[in-house]
């Protein structure tokens, strides 16, 4: 290996080691520590000056108390379960909205497609926070939606949507919609239309042709889109805190409060470690799906 090649590899490698891997080891260590009223607010701290005895006593003081606490206090396991529920339901809802759109885009006349594509990508470049905030003015008691519905005469009393789980679902579907549309669109666009024509010529109905050909062939895109929505939705913080209510429990928000409001760093770290363990399975499945698709493309 030449020196130049070594340096080329070493620069990004050491950056990621220092700022990505080492922080995780710190979180892992802290999740095994205990909170303390001190600076820093946890114990034990490693004191290299006291030598071998110090290291031994440091490891001796680490324990799994925080993780035991997470299983004992219902706040935490309900938060994990409700995050999972919210993430699953909103992924399904996003798919329901995104598929017809992606399908319509793929079937649109060719000269429209770049414009439609740009219309999907444009919100993606717009601030996430602002897009979530836009719904605060729409879903509130005196918001735009209630105003329109009452003006038309569909309802007499304003609906309570803001600060409920429904608002969280709407927020997640809205902000993550482009992530679902784009992978589905790219599989549908590649789909050979003559297959569907052949099926219809051979006597299958449109619905049959859809379920037998379009649906299975677009599956890789659907799977990729679902992971792209599910994974970030599970740890979401901004949407539940702006649109959700006091009964909306999501683990990202619990972690935030544990850290900023209660200043319990070790417990916040334990919450993070468990969240990561839950996410590892979908992340690995997602990567396998991507790899399979890439190999199929080549």
């Amino acid at each position, binding site marked *: *290996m030449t020196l130049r*090649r070594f340096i*080329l*590899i070493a*620069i*990004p*490698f050491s*950056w*990621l080691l220092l*700022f*990505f891997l080492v*922080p*995780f080891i*710190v*979180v892992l260590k802290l999740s095994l520590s205990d909170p303390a009223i001190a600076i820093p607010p946890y114990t034990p701290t490693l004191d290299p000056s006291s030598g071998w005895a110090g290291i031994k006593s440091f490891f001796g003081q680490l324990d799994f108390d925080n993780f035991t606490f997470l299983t004992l206090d219902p706040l935490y396991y309900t938060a994990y379960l409700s995050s999972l529920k919210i993430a699953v339901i909103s992924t399904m809802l996003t798919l329901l909205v995104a598929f*017809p759109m992606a*399908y*319509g*885009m793929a079937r*649109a006349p*060719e000269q429209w497609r770049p414009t*439609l594509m*740009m*219309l999907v990508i*444009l*919100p993606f*470049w*717009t*601030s*996430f*926070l*602002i*897009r979530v*905030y*836009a*719904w*605060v*003015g*729409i879903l*509130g008691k*005196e918001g*735009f939606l209630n105003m329109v519905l009452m003006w038309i005469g569909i309802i007499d009393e304003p609906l309570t949507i803001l600060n409920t789980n429904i608002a969280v679902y709407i927020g997640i579907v809205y902000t993550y*919609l482009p992530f679902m549309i784009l992978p589905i669109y790219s599989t549908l666009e590649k789909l050979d239309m003559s297959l569907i024509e052949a099926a219809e010529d051979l006597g299958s109905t449109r619905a049959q042709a859809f379920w037998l050909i379009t649906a299975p062939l677009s599956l890789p895109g659907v799977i990729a889109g679902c992971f792209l929505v599910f994974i970030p939705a599970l*740890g*979401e*913080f*901004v949407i539940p805190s*702006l649109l959700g209510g006091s009964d909306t429990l999501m683990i*990202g928000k619990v*972690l*935030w409060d544990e*850290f900023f409001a209660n200043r319990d760093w070790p417990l916040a*770290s334990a919450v*993070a470690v468990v*969240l*990561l363990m839950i*996410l590892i399975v979908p*992340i690995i499945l*997602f*990567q396998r799906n991507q790899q399979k698709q890439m190999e199929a493309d080549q």
Partner: protein
Amino acid sequence: MKKPSWFNITSLTLGFAFLYIPMLVLIAYSFNGGRLVTVWAGFSTKWYGELLSNEAFLDAAWVTLRVAVATATLATVLGTLAGYVLVRGGRFMGRTLFAGMAYAPLVMPDVILGLSLLLLFKTMFSSMGMTTVILAHTTFAMCYVSVVVSSRLMSFDRSIEEAAADLGATAFDTFKSVTLPIIFPAVLSGWLLAFTLSLDDLVIASFVTGPGATTLPIKIFSAVRLGVSPEINALSTIMIGIVTIGVITFSVINKRQIAQRLRDEKMAG
């Protein structure tokens, strides 16, 4: 070409209405004279005036801009290197670990990245500030740059690089005069992506920020926590406007380049 079906037209219309109506409502209310959302008190630009005379917002915007430029530049250098190493680096010790680390921040929840980086910074620095925000943003933004650059590297014909090497160019010369010009559009989109990611980030910045380094998203978040604020509508309108102009310009330039390339190929053929 078949005529588009009613089903497709309906789903596209409803879908795009869902995507765009919230932003249009947000923009419309930034020109409302009154503070209440429900009451239309006439057209007015007074919230823009209040926004522009609000020192705290201007300071935050300035901080955010500096952080985003520094992040985008640093992340583009590191991300391009990482993408290059992943595609052209061959085998080396720890390659799997490296590939995993270059990919993981893309799917990691912000709360975890923010918390873990803060805990690290606490052991490295005595106080948090713009430097720590830039370091944190660079770490996740470089992974996005690496994805964009490596996918471009994978799709281009390697024989051009080999030809340059055969003609006696050193590895560095080949990179400088062959590889870099070809991947340059990807490097540029990587820079823009990193810039936008840094501009947008609320969660990670909230963890690793310190006195004097309040970014715009942090400011916006604390202003809208308790409900609608017309100044924020005005600010959002400005930001949406800038992004829209940027995206349209970029796609027009892109379209022209593609058209030009097609013409060139026709001429050559």
